[in-house]
């Protein structure tokens, strides 16, 4: 079935360093990939999304490229800020049912001064 894997449960970085959060997915259908961000005691919010192979999508300094050949949609940022500390979820919807999202287990990013 459709699924998403996020390998890092916890990432801790110093402010100003680059970050990459891993996301791989599994589906036999045409995929749509999302990154959601959840700050402490808040609801998850959409950060960015894509269904276009090999095209970089960006929002609020974060960027990701969908690579269908490797079933990946890694989230990156060149210089993290303290305000980036949050829980990040990768999610998948597929052509079998675009109205259902499959979420990964999440990566907690902590940025230290």
């Amino acid at each position, binding site marked *: 079935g459709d699924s998403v894997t996020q390998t890092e*449960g916890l990432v801790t970085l110093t402010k100003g360093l680059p970050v990459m959060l891993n996301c791989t997915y599994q589906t036999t259908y045409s995929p749509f990939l999302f990154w959601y961000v959840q700050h402490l005691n808040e609801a998850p*919010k959409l950060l960015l*999304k894509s269904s276009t192979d090999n095209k970089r999508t960006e929002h609020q300094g974060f960027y990701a490229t969908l690579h269908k050949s490797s079933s990946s949609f890694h989230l990156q940022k060149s210089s993290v800020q303290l305000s980036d500390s949050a829980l990040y979820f990768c999610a998948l919807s597929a052509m079998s049912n675009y109205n259902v999202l499959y979420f990964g287990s999440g990566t907690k990013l902590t940025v230290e001064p």
Partner: protein
Amino acid sequence: EAAVTQSPRNKVTVTGGNVTLSCRQTNSHNYMYWYRQDTGHGLRLIHYSYGAGNLQIGDVPDGYKATRTTQEDFFLLLELASPSQTSLYFCASSGGGAGAEQFFGPGTRLTVL
């Protein structure tokens, strides 16, 4: 921006108790969802609906019922609550279709003693 509200925000009940979580959206969205969030598991879909009177089963439906009374209102029912249902519950709404964003409510923290 999309508006999804949930009530109550916090709830404590005892094992075997009867609990109803409420969700209302004012976005005229067709789709509404109930998720539970647990550390290490991300967001897991319990039930969803694409309109009043409709109910679709999600990935973790056991022990939960749901009812969509109007386009705006979606309820989650725990008729015999168990400690394993202690969790953070989120409701979401979406217009549906490929790439549609899901808008989340603020969450309800449920504790079953």
